[in-house]
């Protein structure tokens, strides 16, 4: 992972938003709750969401509103979920590389 290109606006203010623990590609992180999965990835410095099935190149979310389908990640074992349409929840597992069909 690289340094994040984004920072939280409320960083230095007491926040009444809880944070929660999630696992991104196997590694545990604390992220503010109610952030979208796609936003959380940016916050953590994960700049690519997936590998494109045709070009093999990395891709990342373009629209953050559900119409570009670039933010497809595996959430809690379910593959190809739009990360921008889901909020992070406690103990969520997010995987950003393309995943084979789970049984």
């Amino acid at each position, binding site marked *: 992972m690289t340094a994040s*290109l984004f920072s*939280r606006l409320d960083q230095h203010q007491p926040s009444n938003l809880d944070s929660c623990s999630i696992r991104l590609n196997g590694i545990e992180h604390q992220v503010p709750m109610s952030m979208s999965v796609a936003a959380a990835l*940016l916050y953590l410095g994960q*700049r690519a*969401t997936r590998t494109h099935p045709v070009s093999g190149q*990395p891709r990342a979310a*373009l629209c953050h509103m559900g*119409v570009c*389908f670039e933010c497809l990640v595996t959430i809690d074992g379910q593959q190809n979920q739009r990360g921008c349409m889901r909020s992070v929840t406690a103990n969520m597992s997010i995987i950003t590389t393309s995943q084979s069909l789970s049984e």
Partner: protein
Amino acid sequence: MTQIYDYLVVGAGPAGMAAGIEASHAGLKVLVLDQAATAGGQIFRNVSHTSYAQQQVLGSDYGLGKPLLKEFMAAPCDYQPLAQVWNIEPHAQGFTVAALIDGRSVSFVASDLLIANGAMERPMAVAGWEKPGVMTAGAGQILLKASALLPKKVVLAGSGPLLLLLAHQYRAAGVTITALLDTTPRSNYWRAIPWLIAGLSMPKQLFKGVWLSLVQRIRVPYFANVTDIKIVGNTQVAAVRFIVAGKEYEVPTNLVLLHQGIVGQTQMAQALACKQEWSDPKQCWQTQVAEAGQTSVPGVHVAGDAGATGGAKLAQLEGRLAAMARVKKSCTHSSWAKKLAYLALSWRIRQLHWARGLVDRLYQPAPWLSTPTGTTVVCRCEQVSAAQITDIAKAGCAGVNQLKAFSRAGMGPCQGRQCGLNLGYLIAQVQDRPMAQVEPLSVRPPLSPINLGQLAQPSDV
């Protein structure tokens, strides 16, 4: 037994909320479905939960969503958040809408529908736009509104009021804007002059727009008349190259936000076979409407940016008018006061659309942006380039639908949302046909994702 709603509204943005309020207070059985966790649409996204600091950055217009939201939450309509509508089709009692809610497909039946699912950004297909580090200005706003995220350094590129607004908001929040690349062609300013009259009918908005526009030129590294934008980098964005007055520039950056205005999301209306028409001023397809948002299909209305784009205020008024039209349908008698209110609202909406004409013409995308060339990716989902599409168009295919069959462009998960418009432009250019005659991509379910298991096992309502 499935209950049948009198009015099913898809979308809880300003249009949907206003419609829900109006129709439910008039005594109709109303259901509002929305895909987000809280109401507000995109423009008022997360307005119920944003912090003081966020609202300071976003500005006072954003705060206007709060009283509307409050009124909506207090209204006697059924409201289902986190519902992703994936199918919409005629039904014996009107229409049936299937939505994925909490992992299960649930169907609703209603005699009348209001499609208020808003707009999306016009896809701005510049070379390298598919690299990580490129997103839309709208995405920047969503990240700010819903997740309180700000970039550290950013290049903004494109044209339109939203781009200028975002630049202003970012500056106020301390974000370093490395450069603002304005692609608005100089000729647009000349062509927009006759429309200043329309703009003057809304002096506050006009003044604000002009001020925003001028302010950016002073306060951030601003480039006007930008063409030939190329985003370069290996596995992510490293720099943006562009041309101004024949001179080539390169600005190093890891983040580029693009914007070329917004276009209505027409898929739901298309799924119901509502006639579409090409709007030359807005340079996009829109659902053809008569009075109060009535589409070509009886029982189906559109309101807000899902129809003719016009912003939050207009959306709210249109939502209310559409609901009033629905109420009129059920009531045999309507008072003089109601009739007057309806006419006044109708007139105001027409006036606001006329005023909008200035924005539409001033910020029309430059022609070079509508017709990408060479290796520029046009269909992101299936990695189909402009050159591949042009070749097939030259071989004489009938239109974008046949082009899709031959190239796979439009067959990926986004179902042509990011490429449809540009496919049309390319065909129109190569085959020398007007856009109005190049039929748009046909729409098929699912309108949003659903897996086979969920489809196979719908939930009983």
